C-alpha cells in the first residue's frame, strides 16, 4: 500500500518553480509559501498557470525547475499517491463504476485502512448526503457530485486539499451556497485548502490569502482586503473588481502625503500607498469610493471638476454612472441607492470627490489595459 | 526508480506479442505470396512443385487470361456498393432521426439478421429466387419476366446477394456518421429558407460524408474479392476473380498464377481506394 505518513504536514513551500512545455513557459520562477491551516486562493485568468501550479503540488505534473516542500519533507519528485495531498477536480472525476460509498472509501482502502464505515459515514454527514451512499455518480446532480468529490478528498484528512475550480459547473445560486459551505468545512475540519479559480468574487469570499497570477507569475499576494484596497499593479487593480486609473505626475510631498497632478487638477494621497518608481504614475480610485455632486454643492477631500454624466445605469442596489472628464477619459462611479436621493441625469455637469486615503498609485509605465478583458484566444491555453 | 525506464519500454512490450503474431501470419505470408507469384512449375516435377525463376510475366499472363473476371469483379463490387448505399442510407437516416426511443432497438434489428450464418442466408436467397421459391412464379404470372427467365445463376442474383450480405458494413458507418449530426443544424437550415431537399443536399449529406466514405470502402473492398455469392447464386458465366483464385488453389493447382492474381487484385484495390480517398478527402478511417 502507499506509504503516506499523515505525520508529513506543515507549510507548503514552492521554491523557484518553473514549468515549461518546449518553448512555452506555463509557470515562471514562482515562489510561494502557504501557511498550514489557511484557505489560500490562486486567482487569475485562463492560461495564467494556476492550474499547472496546482497539478505540480498534487504531483500530477513535475516541475522543470524548482522544489516543493511540505513542512520539512521534499516532495518534488514524489508520485501523487505518495503525497498526503488530495484534489477536488474540476469535473469531479468521480468513478462511474463505483457507488458513492466506494468512491469516498477509495483513498482509505488504498492506504490499507480496513474499517472504513465510520469515516465514510461521518464525511457523508458533513456534506449532508448520507442517503446517497449506495447510488452511482451518474444518478447525482452536479451540486451533489461536487460535494461527494469534496467528501472523497476530505475523508483522507490530507495535509493539503487542492480544489481546481470546483464550483465552475454550478449555477449561480448553488455556487454562492457552496462557497459559504466550503469555507465552513475548512474551518470545521482544519485542513489547508488551496483553491484555484478565475472568479475574483469567489476568491475574495472564501480565501484568507489570495495570490493573483498572470502569465506564469504571481503579481501580488495578500489578504482580499489588502489586494482590493491597495493593488500594486494595473493587472491586479483591473482583475479584482474595477478601477479608475488616471494618468498623473507626482509634483511634490506634503508631510506623509504626495501631491499629484492629474491633467492640471491637484489631488493628494498617502505616500505609503504609492507603488511608483518615479514621478510618472497612474492614480487609482475604486468606483464606489467616488462621490458625485452637482456643481456648487459642498464637497470634501480630493476634488476633480469638469465632469459630465455620459450614462446612467440603475442596478437596484446602486446606480452606475459613466462620467466624462475634461481630458476625455470616462470614469466609473458607483453610488449606493441608500439615501432616497434621485439619481443624476445624463448630461448633468458634476464634480467628483473622494477621501484621499482611498487613492493608490501604480507605476506610470504599467499596462493600463492589463486584467481588463479576457482575450478569447487565451481561453484554450490552461 | 525503474519507473521512468519501464514507462518508455511499456508500449513496446505490449505491442510485441501481437505484432510478432501479425508479422508471422500476415506480413510473412504476403511476402511469401509475392515470391510465389514469380515461380514456374518445375519441369518434370509433381503438381505443386515450383522453382523461383522471377518470372514476372506470370502477372501479365494471369491478368490477360482473366481480364473478364477482373472487370466483372469490379463492376459487381461497384454495383453492390452503390445499391447498398442507396438502400442503407435512408435506413440509417430513419434510425438516426426518426426513431426516437426505438433507436437502439432498431440498430440491433439491422444487425440481427447477420447473426444467421451468411451461408444460410445466401442459400436462402437462392431458394427464394429459385424455381421453387415464391418470387419467380409470382413475377412470371404478373408478366414482369418471361417464362423462360430465371433469377438464379444470373449476374443479377450475384449482385443482389452481395448487396444484401454487405448491407451492415454500409449501414453502421452511415448511422454512426448521421447520428453525430446535431439536428439543430438542420433546423437552422430550415430557418434560413431551405426546404427539405435542399437541407439534405447542403447540410445533411456533406456532414455524413465520413460515414459514406467509410461505408463504401468497407463494402467495396471485401466485395471485390468475394466469390461465395458468385458460387452460390451465379453460374460459370458470372465467375469473379475470387472464383478463379480459389480454383487455382484447389482445382487446377497453379500457385504462381493464383499468387499473381491475388497481388493484382490487392494492387488494383489499393490504387482505387487511394484515388477514392484522395478525392473524398477523408483520411481518418481507423
Amino acid at each position: 500500500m502507499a506509504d503516506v505518513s499523515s505525520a508529513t504536514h506543515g507549510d507548503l513551500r514552492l521554491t523557484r518553480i518553473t514549468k515549461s512545455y518546449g518553448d512555452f513557459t506555463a509557470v515562471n520562477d514562482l515562489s510561494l509559501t502557504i501557511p498550514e491551516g489557511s484557505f489560500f486562493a490562486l486567482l487569475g485568468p485562463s492560461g495564467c498557470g494556476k492550474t499547472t501550479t496546482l497539478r505540480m503540488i498534487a504531483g500530477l505534473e513535475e516541475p522543470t525547475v524548482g522544489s516543493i516542500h511540505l513542512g520539512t519533507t521534499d516532495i518534488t519528485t514524489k508520485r501523487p499517491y505518495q503525497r498526503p495531498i488530495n484534489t477536488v477536480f474540476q469535473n469531479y472525476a468521480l468513478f462511474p463504476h463505483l457507488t458513492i460509498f466506494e468512491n469516498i472509501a477509495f483513498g482509505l482502502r488504498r492506504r490499507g485502512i480496513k474499517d472504513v464505515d465510520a469515516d465514510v459515514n461521518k464525511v457523508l454527514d458533513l456534506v449532508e448526503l448520507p442517503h446517497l451512499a449506495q447510488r452511482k455518480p451518474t444518478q447525482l446532480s452536479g451540486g451533489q457530485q461536487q460535494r461527494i468529490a469534496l467528501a472523497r478528498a476530505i475523508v483522507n484528512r490530507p495535509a493539503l486539499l487542492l480544489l481546481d475550480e470546483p464550483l465552475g459547473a454550478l449555477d449561480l445560486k448553488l455556487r454562492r451556497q457552496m462557497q459559504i459551505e466550503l469555507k465552513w468545512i475548512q474551518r470545521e475540519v482544519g485542513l489547508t485548502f488551496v483553491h484555484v479559480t478565475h472568479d475574483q468574487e469567489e476568491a475574495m469570499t472564501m480565501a484568507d490569502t489570495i495570490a493573483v497570477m498572470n502569465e506564469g507569475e504571481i503579481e501580488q499576494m495578500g489578504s482580499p482586503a489588502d489586494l482590493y484596497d491597495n493593488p500594486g499593479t494595473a493587472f491586479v487593480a483591473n482583475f479584482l473588481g474595477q478601477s479608475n486609473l488616471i494618468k498623473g505626475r507626482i509634483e511634490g510631498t506634503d508631510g506623509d502625503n504626495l501631491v499629484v497632478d492629474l491633467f492640471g487638477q491637484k489631488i493628494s494621497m498617502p505616500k505609503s500607498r504609492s507603488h511608483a518608481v518615479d514621478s510618472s504614475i497612474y492614480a487609482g480610485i475604486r468606483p464606489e469610493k467616488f462621490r458625485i455632486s452637482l456643481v456648487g454643492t459642498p464637497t470634501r477631500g480630493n476634488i476633480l471638476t469638469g465632469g459630465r454624466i455620459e450614462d446612467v445605469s440603475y442596478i437596484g442596489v446602486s446606480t452606475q454612472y459613466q462620467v466624462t472628464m475634461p481630458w476625455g477619459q470616462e470614469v466609473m462611479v458607483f453610488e449606493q441607492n441608500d439615501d432616497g436621493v434621485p439619481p443624476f441625469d445624463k448630461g448633468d455637469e458634476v464634480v467628483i470627490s473622494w477621501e484621499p486615503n482611498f487613492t493608490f498609485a501604480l507605476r506610470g509605465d504599467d499596462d493600463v489595459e492589463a486584467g481588463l478583458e479576457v482575450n478569447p484566444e487565451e481561453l484554450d491555453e490552461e | 526508480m525503474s519507473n521512468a525506464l519501464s514507462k518508455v519500454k511499456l508500449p513496446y512490450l505490449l505491442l510485441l506479442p501481437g505484432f510478432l503474431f501479425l508479422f508471422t501470419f500476415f506480413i510473412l505470408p504476403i511476402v511469401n505470396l509475392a515470391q510465389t507469384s514469380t515461380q514456374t512449375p518445375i519441369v518434370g516435377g509433381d503438381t505443386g512443385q515450383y522453382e523461383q525463376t522471377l518470372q514476372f510475366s506470370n502477372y501479365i499472363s494471369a491478368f490477360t487470361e482473366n481480364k473478364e473476371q477482373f472487370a466483372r469483379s469490379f463492376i459487381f463490387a461497384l454495383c453492390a456498393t452503390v445499391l447498398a448505399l442507396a438502400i442503407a442510407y435512408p435506413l440509417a437516416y430513419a434510425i438516426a432521426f426518426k426513431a426516437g426511443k426505438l433507436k437502439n432497438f432498431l440498430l440491433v434489428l439491422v444487425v440481427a439478421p447477420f447473426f444467421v450464418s451468411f451461408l444460410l442466408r445466401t442459400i436462402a436467397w437462392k431458394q427464394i429466387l429459385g424455381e421453387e421459391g415464391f418470387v419467380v412464379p409470382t413475377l412470371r404470372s404478373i408478366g414482369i419476366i418471361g417464362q423462360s427467365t430465371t433469377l438464379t445463376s444470373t449476374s443479377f442474383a450475384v449482385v443482389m446477394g452481395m448487396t444484401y450480405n454487405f448491407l451492415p458494413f454500409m449501414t453502421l458507418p452511415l448511422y454512426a456518421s448521421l447520428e453525430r449530426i446535431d439536428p439543430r443544424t438542420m433546423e437552422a437550415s430550415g430557418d434560413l429558407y431551405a426546404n427539405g431537399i435542399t437541407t439534405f443536399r447542403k447540410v445533411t449529406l456533406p456532414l455524413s460524408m465520413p460515414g459514406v466514405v467509410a461505408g463504401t470502402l468497407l463494402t467495396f473492398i471485401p466485395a471485390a474479392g468475394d466469390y461465395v455469392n458468385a458460387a452460390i447464386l451465379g453460374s460459370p458465366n458470372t465467375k469473379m476473380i475470387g472464383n478463379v483464385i480459389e480454383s487455382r488453389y484447389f482445382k487446377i493447382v497453379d500457385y504462381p498464377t493464383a499468387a499473381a492474381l491475388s497481388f493484382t487484385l490487392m494492387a488494383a484495390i489499393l490504387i482505387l481506394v487511394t484515388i477514392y480517398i484522395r478525392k473524398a478527402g477523408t483520411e481518418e478511417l481507423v
Partner: protein
Amino acid sequence: MNKQIDATIPTIPTKARLSRWFGRNLIRIYAVFGFTYLFIPVLYTFAFSFNDAGKSNLIWKGFTLDNWKNPCGAPEVCTALGNSIKIGLLATVFSTILGTMIAFAIGRYAFKGRSSSNLLIFLPMATPEIVLGASLLSLFLVFHINPGFWPTVIAHVMFCISFVVVTVKARIASLDPRLEQAAMDLYANELETFRRVTLPLVAPGIAGAALLAFSLSFDDFIITNFNSGTLKTFPEFVYTSAARGIPAQANVIGSAMFILALLIVIAGQFVGKKVKVSK
C-alpha cells in the same frame, strides 16, 4: 338573422394533408420495407427449420418439430458446429488478449512508430479475405504444415486482432484521463489504478471486442475454406452440402444462433445502461 361566429380551426384540404403525411413519413414507410427485406432470408431459414424434409431441404414437405427436438439428427451438422465453436472460442481468447494489449499500447502511449502501428493494424482489414486466406495457405505449404484445426485457429486470430484493436481503442479513447489521475491522487499506484479504475471501465469494450471476434470467426468462410483442409466448420458444411440440399437441422442451428445472439445483445443493452461512462 343571427350569425354564429365560431372559432374556426383552419382545415387543410384532405389531399394536401395526405401528401404532407406522406412527406413526413415516407422515410418511416421505407424503413419498414427495408427491415422486411433484411429479414426475408432469416424468416425463410427459420420457417424451413420446421420442414419435414429429411436430407434435402429444398421444397416444403410438411411441418414438424422433430428437427428442433433432435438438432444433431444429421451428425455432420453438429460436428461442424462443434468445430466452429471450438475454433471460435480459441480465436476469441487469443485475439482479444493480443488485440487488447495492442490497443492499450497505441491508445495510451505516444511512442515512435505509433502511426506505422496503426497502419499495420489497418492493413488486414483492408485486404480481401481471399488474399489473406490464400497467402496464409501458401505459407503453411512452404513449411509443410497441412491445413486443419490449428492453422484455422491461427488464421482466425490473425484477422480478428485488428477488429479487437479498433473496438478496444475506441473505448480507451472515451475514458476520461482525469479518473486515473484522481485514483493516483487517492493513493493508488500505477498498478492499482489500472486494476481498480482503468480495467473495469474498459471492460465493456473488451467484452464487445470478444463478442465481435467470436461472431467474425464463427461466420467466416473464405479464410477458413483455404486453411481448414478436411475439417469442416459450420459455414463450410452449409456450403458443401448446398448442392444436394442442406439438412433442416442446419436451419435449426442457424435459427438458434440467431435467437441466442439476439438475446445476448439485448441483455448487453440492459447491462450497458447501468454502467454508463460519462466524460
